[in-house]
């Protein structure tokens, strides 16, 4: 009797061990219960067809169904539990949420008949925009509540694909950069909505709302970044001021720190970050001239008189042209400066000669020929072997130097 009982125990052990082994190999199904504060994923997640690698017949065990959950918090917990890396958990969840909201946004579309008038179209378009905005806000809030920070897969895509964005935000870590981009996208969209609601005719109440939006963005970004990162971010956004106002630095000796300081100064004249949300009101030519003079005065204090003169020279297209030519032809900077000054002197003198009423036409022509010859010599000596290239390219003004001025209407003589 003892032996059969021992056999029975051994057989039970066989069964138990076999069950454990099978469970470990396949994974035993675990029932997942939604926590009380459940955040539910779309139904599509449950309904999405599972695929088989072999012949399209679903496998009898579908492990993914044990991971995916209608409750996003549970879904995240399950993904983490199976060792899915955090960045991938985030991308999976956000993509799923994106997909869910995209489907939601596609429901209830508005059909526009071609004979529908502009007013009605605008009204419907704004109503639809409002619905979509509400959905987007809901989506962002959901993402933030799940991840603890802003995240937008579109911003992530921009960060990965757009060279300039990568370069501009490159001082931040990947995650921070995408978080800042997500915030900026969110606020830019909110600003755009206010402007569109106003049909781009901004009145005081719109500007007040936009200002509040800008301040919120400012506060949120400053909370997200440490002070030095925030400062750098603002400066990099502000460098658009240089482009917007056609400011150049060719031939100006400046340190990076000085450039950053100049950009910092410009912020009190035109805040580029703010302009993204609240467009600059139109300014008259007189106003523009006034603030430009005030800005230049501050640049002069920053650079000192000598380098400020270089800075002013850099704003002249003629200088930038010869400067670029010099660079292409590996000429020293001094050569470009000599040519530029030679040209400026020559053109000033030519103008004086043209206007000099005491000169006869013959004397004027002779004076211009002398001026041209002197200038050609000076420029040839500055440019050396590049002189021919210069004449064929940016140096075409030399040809016009000795040309007599166009006779004025009414003074024509036969």
């Amino acid at each position: 009797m003892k032996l059969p009982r021992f056999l029975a125990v051994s057989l039970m052990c066989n069964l138990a061990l076999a069950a454990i082994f099978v469970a470990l190999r396949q994974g035993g199904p675990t029932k997942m219960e939604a926590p009380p504060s459940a955040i539910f994923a779309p139904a599509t997640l449950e309904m999405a067809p599972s695929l088989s690698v072999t012949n399209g017949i679903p496998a009898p065990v579908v492990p993914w169904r044990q991971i995916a959950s209608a409750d996003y918090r549970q879904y995240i917990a399950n993904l983490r539990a199976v060792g899915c890396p955090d960045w991938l958990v985030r991308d999976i969840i956000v993509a799923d949420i994106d997909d869910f909201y995209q489907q939601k946004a596609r429901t209830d579309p508005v059909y526009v008949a071609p004979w529908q008038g502009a007013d009605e179209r605008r009204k419907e378009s704004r109503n639809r925009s409002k619905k979509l905005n509400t959905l987007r806000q809901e989506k962002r809030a959901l993402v933030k509540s799940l991840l603890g920070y802003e995240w937008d897969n579109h911003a992530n895509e921009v960060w990965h694909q757009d060279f300039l964005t990568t370069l501009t935000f490159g001082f931040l870590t990947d995650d921070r950069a995408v978080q800042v981009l997500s915030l900026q996208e969110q606020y830019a969209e909110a600003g755009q909505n206010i402007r569109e609601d106003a049909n781009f005719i901004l009145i005081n109440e719109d500007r007040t709302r936009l200002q509040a939006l800008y301040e919120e963005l400012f506060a949120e970004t400053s909370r997200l970044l440490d002070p030095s990162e925030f400062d750098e971010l603002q400066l990099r956004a502000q460098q658009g001021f240089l482009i917007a106002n056609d400011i150049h630095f060719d031939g100006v000796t400046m340190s990076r720190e000085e450039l950053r300081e100049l950009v910092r100064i410009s912020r009190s004249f035109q805040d580029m970050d703010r302009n993204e949300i609240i467009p600059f009101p139109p300014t008259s030519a007189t106003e523009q001239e006034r603030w430009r003079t005030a800005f230049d005065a501050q640049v002069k204090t920053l650079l000192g008189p000598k380098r400020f003169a270089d800075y002013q020279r850099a704003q002249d297209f003629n200088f930038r042209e010869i400067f670029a030519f010099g660079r292409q032809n590996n000429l020293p900077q001094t050569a470009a400066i000599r040519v530029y000054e030679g040209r400026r002197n020559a053109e000033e003198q030519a103008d004086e000669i043209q206007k000099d009423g005491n000169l006869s036409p013959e004397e004027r022509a002779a004076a211009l020929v002398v001026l041209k010859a002197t200038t050609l010599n000076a420029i040839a000596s500055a440019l050396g072997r590049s002189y021919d290239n210069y004449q064929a390219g940016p140096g075409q003004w030399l040809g016009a130097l000795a040309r007599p001025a166009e006779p004025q209407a009414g003074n024509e003589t036969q």
Partner: protein
Amino acid sequence: MKTGLFIGFSLVLNVALAAAIILSAKNRPVPARPPAAGTSVADTIRQSPAPVDDSPLPGLPFHWSQIASENLKIYRDHLRAIGCPEPTAREIIRAVINERFGAQRRNLLAPLEDRYWDMVMREELVRRQAIPQSEWGRELTALAAERQRLIVDVLGSDALAAEAGQPTRRAALELRYAWLPQEKRDRLIDLEEKYQQQLVGWAANLGLRPYGASTDEDGNRLQEWQKEFDESEKQLLAPEELAELHLRESDAADWAGSLPGFDPSEDEWRAMTKLRSELDEGQSPPGGPELTEEERMARQSELQANFDRTLKEILGPDRFAQYELANNGQFQEVRNITQRYGLPDSVAMAAFEIQETALASARQVAENPDLSPETRLATLTSIQQEAERTLSGTLNAEVFSTYKEYSGDWLKDLVPAQ
């Protein structure tokens, strides 16, 4: 004896199973290694073998390291095998590709980070179109093309179509063809989708070439697809449906959407769209004779006069007047402002009339040769002041202030700058 054999077999089996369980638990995953410097990310991803399978933790269906693989095709197949829905599997693979290429991109861009402000000073960031020609731009472009190739290789060209916003486009097409019966609509959309996929594939193929250069063969292929699409469309739709489609899709069809303040009826829209199409065709008849500039202008005036006359007959004088007003850019500017403040169109009309009257008076003064410069200036100033006063009264001070900001340039221009 038999019992003894059974016991012996059972004991051996117990030992074997226990050993198998212990081995399973010990068999942990091999961590993935980053690609070696100088190795193509795509090559590494394609060539690396799948990591050694690992057992899941007790109670869990699998461990991620069992499905993750350096080889993305294996990774994709593992995801499918565990029943991961296709869209999620795509997102995972795409995210992994982004992560790996992202690291490579950052390596390329890291040296530039130190030079950021130097690049600003030298305006290298302004010349955006020159970036792809720079050394780092070329490297990034090559890397982006490699990423695209890998996506196509692992996920198929459909993945690129999804990147190009296929679902959104389909929804837009659903709306555009909502007037067609459901079955025909679906088939027409399928045709459009197929055509779009051909175009996306075509463009992606060009993108893989240096500078996206196209050949004659590429051009011919485009023409063939267009022809094929047109033929299929013709076969699918009845002649009257095709005519309706062409009317709705014609350049002239969308006029109603750009005329605030004029809501046409369906009949008015149809009549006017046909008329506008005829006007467009008349202005540039295919295979028509070469015209001089003068002849072309004369022809255009004649066609426009015919168009206006016929339109007046169709609409009647009152509706035609409304239509003309809606076409007036200056009126639309004023109306935008009054609408912003919720004022009725009659206020916009009144403000517009003040503007018309002031401009007509200013024209008369400017063209009057009998006036001295001083008298002309004084009269124009007085017209300007009067216009400002009446506009301010008609619109009220707040609306007038907005009016001046958005639509008041003409007031300044009444008096020439000294």
